[in-house]
């Protein structure tokens, strides 16, 4: 077979070189026709690992307190990169990683769920930017992705697709994981390829419960073994993208207990300890200075003694969760080694996609969604809510969706300032990377200090595979990748700086790097505060981005951004400001703060659909796809058939006890339970039994006013006859859950009402023929517009925690 033209994808089929006569007489086959494209000779396997919401100072491999023996093993057999950069937000880093292009240029200025109306924020991959997995697949690789995806808009995450925005559409032969920005690790609502498969059966096994990080590795091994059973030679590309260490921080007690007492010294001391280890390891220069604590983070000494154990436990769980991720990546590596293919596999392992996340707010939270729904809780309240659900021993269990306090994240980003969302500073943009490939790396265990960026990974993989970037894909001319291969650094510690310039932008926080200089332009908003008040200074006509604070650092002399040189180098400041604008225009970064446009009156069209009908047993409707009943009056009605002798079970349920609703029958009584993020729980029970036969049941919520989180009155009906009532003082304003789904006829995964937890999923024993949601408009258009605005603002705020 001749070497194909790989610049045009899909690779054209072989030209028939045989002879086809009218009969077989004299005909000669060309067996090349039934072949398939193969990668160039010697193309290696690739294992690309991405850890979520973690910082430079987390893994022990880079001096952190979290034991990462497998990461260290790979570093000792490969290279450590200590000047590698990401984008300070989740989906943007993933988009850049998988396309080799700057995130805004491919529509991911923000997270995947929320598509905006500007090119840099559409969350829709342009067809002239074919992603890496597609290129590899077309060139003959077997491709698979496991874990977190986060590149599919809300509203497109169901059986109607479109699937070009799902992992298969990006070029993965196989996908097992979740589409959202995060997931429960005990009770995920999973996707396999193009189907929502929901919460695994193992969730119901109390003795040996399902755990997603373990299952991710199991599935990877299964897939790999299957591929090898069929084809011993075909190279593979595995994208192993952990849900860890994003909230909810779910891990078994056994893993968390390994860190018992390890964080009692608090975050200030932890930073100092980490920094000392980083210097001892050489991943931070000996003359580097530890940056100071920003006022937004409390001093550990100021934490009341009675709450110190509450905070320390948060970090113990996070650490155990993270070490478990290392363990499961190690299992995948071991399996590759067992196949005797480890040395034929390029392993690229990035520990964190945006620095560690500060979105747990100062207090941390028993439920990550409290922040996103704007429910402010003090640390004492958080502790009490944790007690409500079993206490701090259960902080990593399915009963909670925990997130640690912001200062732990800051400590995880040691030695840098800030963290996730803050694209202007290294806390949000610099993460550890390890590369292993004995074929080219000989001085194993060494450090590489070239300035790199996540856009450089895809070009590197293509370079190592000997595959050119395609000029056209599906007949569409391709935009060249923006990244540069880092392969030259494998064999040469002194290889030239392959990247001398890079812009950074996340939610208005900007960085411009050039030739060692870094201009940092951070908005004054604290990352976990997304209020109209906090955003007022950034309104159109008010905000002059160039007039805000600008810090200048020279990184070759100042690894941590400890010394602001802006006052001494005004010309350099101006030069980098000008350069940022050039880059911003070139890569579709503009308009700045497009992600938050809803706070300034720039809104997507209002939804026109207000009636939603579910027939049959529709299950696992993803959380961003459910009817948006929030802040409105609404009715949920169901046509059911109740057999003689009665029925029980769930008619319809969304999410779980940490935010959701359920309409169900127990002891013959129609019951409605509504959880306002686990903080407030409301329950109404009918006063008469449900009759047998074909009946219609209904719950109606009459909102008090057109206001977010409005209270209101609930009435239960059987065949239009009121049979029960009650009040809900507060409702969920933005979103019940980041990951849990809605089900008809049962309550899959974690249940909404713990009263039937022992019977989960508590399937309805009659028949649910149809469930209809009727979202009733408020009286005036002005009210509707106001709520639409608030809703969009809330979603924008939610989007920042991707």
């Amino acid at each position, binding site marked *: 077979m001749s070497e194909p033209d790989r610049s045009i994808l899909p690779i054209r089929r072989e030209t028939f070189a045989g002879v086809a006569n009218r009969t077989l007489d004299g005909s000669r086959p060309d067996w090349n026709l039934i072949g398939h494209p193969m990668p160039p000779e010697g193309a290696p396997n690739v294992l690309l690992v991405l850890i979520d919401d973690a910082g430079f100072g987390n893994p022990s491999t880079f001096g952190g307190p979290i034991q990462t023996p497998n990461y260290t093993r790979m570093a000792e057999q490969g290279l450590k990169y200590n000047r590698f950069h990401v984008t300070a937000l989740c989906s943007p880093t993933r988009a850049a990683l998988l396309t080799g292009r700057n995130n805004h240029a491919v529509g991911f200025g923000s997270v995947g769920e929320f598509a905006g109306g500007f090119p840099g924020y559409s969350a829709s991959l342009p067809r002239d930017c074919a992603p890496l997995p597609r290129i590899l697949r077309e060139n003959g690789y077997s491709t698979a992705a496991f874990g977190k995806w986060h590149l599919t808009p809300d509203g497109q995450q169901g059986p109607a697709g479109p699937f070009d925005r799902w992992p298969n559409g990006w070029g993965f032969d196989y996908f097992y994981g979740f589409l959202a920005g995060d997931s429960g690790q005990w009770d995920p609502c999973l996707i396999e390829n193009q189907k929502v498969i929901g919460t695994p059966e193992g969730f119901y096994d109390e003795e040996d419960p399902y755990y997603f990080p373990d299952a991710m590795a199991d599935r990877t091994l299964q897939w790999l073994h299957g591929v090898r059973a069929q084809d011993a030679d075909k190279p593979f590309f595995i994208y192993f993208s952990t849900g860890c260490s994003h909230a909810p921080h779910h891990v078994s007690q056994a893993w968390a207990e390994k860190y018992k007492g390890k964080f009692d010294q608090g975050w200030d001391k932890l930073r100092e300890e980490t920094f000392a280890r980083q210097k001892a390891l050489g991943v931070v220069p000996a003359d580097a200075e530890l940056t100071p604590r920003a006022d937004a983070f409390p001093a550990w000494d100021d934490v009341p003694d009675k709450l110190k154990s509450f905070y320390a436990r948060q970090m113990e769980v996070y650490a155990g969760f993270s070490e478990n991720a290392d363990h499961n990546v190690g299992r995948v590596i071991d399996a590759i080694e067992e196949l005797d293919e480890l040395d034929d596999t390029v392993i690229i392992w990035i520990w964190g996609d945006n620095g560690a996340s500060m979105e747990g707010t100062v207090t941390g939270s028993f439920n990550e969604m409290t922040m996103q729904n704007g*429910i402010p809780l003090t640390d004492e309240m958080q502790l009490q809510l944790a007690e409500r659900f079993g*206490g701090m021993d259960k902080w990593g269990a399915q009963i909670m969706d925990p997130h640690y306090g912001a200062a732990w994240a800051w400590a995880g980003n040691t030695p840098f300032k800030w963290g996730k969302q803050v694209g202007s500073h290294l806390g949000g943009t610099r993460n550890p990377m390890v590369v292993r490939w004995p074929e080219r790396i000989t001085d194993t265990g060494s450090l590489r200090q070239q300035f790199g960026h996540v856009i450089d990974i895809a070009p590197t993989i293509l370079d190592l595979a000997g595959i050119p970037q395609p000029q056209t894909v599906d007949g569409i001319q391709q935009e060249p990748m923006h990244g540069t291969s880092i392969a030259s650094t494998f064999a040469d510690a002194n290889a030239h700086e392959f990247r001398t310039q890079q812009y950074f932008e996340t939610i208005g926080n900007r960085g411009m790097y050039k030739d060692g200089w870094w201009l940092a332009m951070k908005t004054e908003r604290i990352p976990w505060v997304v209020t109209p008040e906090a955003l007022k200074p950034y309104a159109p006509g008010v905000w002059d981005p160039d007039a805000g604070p600008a810090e200048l650092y020279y990184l070759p002399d100042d690894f941590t951004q400890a010394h602001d040189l802006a006052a001494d180098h005004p010309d350099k400041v101006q030069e980098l400001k000008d350069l940022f604008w050039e880059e911003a225009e070139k890569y579709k970064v503009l308009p700045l703060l497009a992600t938050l446009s809803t706070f300034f009156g720039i809104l997507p069209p209002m939804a026109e659909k207000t009636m939603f009908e579910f027939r049959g047993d529709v299950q696992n409707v993803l959380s961003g796809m459910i009817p948006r009943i929030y802040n409105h009056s609404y009715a949920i009605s169901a046509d059911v058939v109740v057999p003689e002798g009665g029925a029980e079970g769930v008619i319809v349920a969304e999410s779980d006890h940490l935010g959701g609703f359920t309409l169900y029958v127990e002891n013959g009584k129609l019951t409605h339970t509504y959880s306002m993020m686990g*903080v407030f729980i409301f329950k109404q029970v009918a006063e008469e039994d449900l009759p047998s036969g074909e009946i219609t049941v209904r719950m109606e919520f009459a909102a008090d006013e057109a206001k977010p989180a409005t209270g209101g009155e609930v009435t239960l009906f059987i065949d239009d006859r009121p049979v029960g009532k009650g009040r809900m003082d507060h409702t969920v304003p933005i979103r019940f859950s980041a990951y849990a789904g809605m089900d008809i006829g049962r309550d899959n995964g974690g249940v909404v009402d713990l009263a039937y937890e022992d019977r989960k999923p508590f399937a309805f024993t009659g028949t649910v023929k149809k469930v209809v949601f009727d979202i009733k408009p408020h009286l005036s258009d002005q009210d509707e517009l106001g709520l639409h605005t608030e809703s969009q603002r809330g979603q924008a705020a939610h989007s920042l925690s991707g």
Partner: protein
Amino acid sequence: MAKEPTDVLIGGYLSTEAAHEDYEAVLNCGAEIMGAVVVSKDMEGNLSVEQTDHMVKEGAEGLAGVGFVVGLFAPPLLAATAIGAVIGAGAGKVLHKKTGSKIEEEAGKTIPIGGAGLIVAYKHDHADTIEPAVARAVKKVVGEADGHHVEALKGALADAQKKMAKQGG
């Protein structure tokens, strides 16, 4: 000689553990109390009431009809989602054994699922010992009134109720 004022402290909690911790702390703080009651509701909606015998001795059945409010208020992180977070608007007829069923009836209506309330009555002289013992309430108010036992308790409870409602939004 003027009678010593009576104080009634009301604490609101998001967990029953926290309420019981404070209840025990009050009982063990060394001060003399006229009575204490903790009312809580578990996650399945089951109500439990625990109270001291002191209440009976004080003969406070006259308090029937005076409610209390157990609440907490938290300013919104997103002004857009202004939540007047009142946890319960509890009413209790709290201070006599004979009214126990009424406590349950009233509190059952108003204590939120997973929440709890604590009420402590004491002579004002003991405030410096008792108030710090109530360390975990996410909301705490103290009402005060003069007069004889029942009258003072009623007044103090009403005062506390008013303060709680004012804070509770």
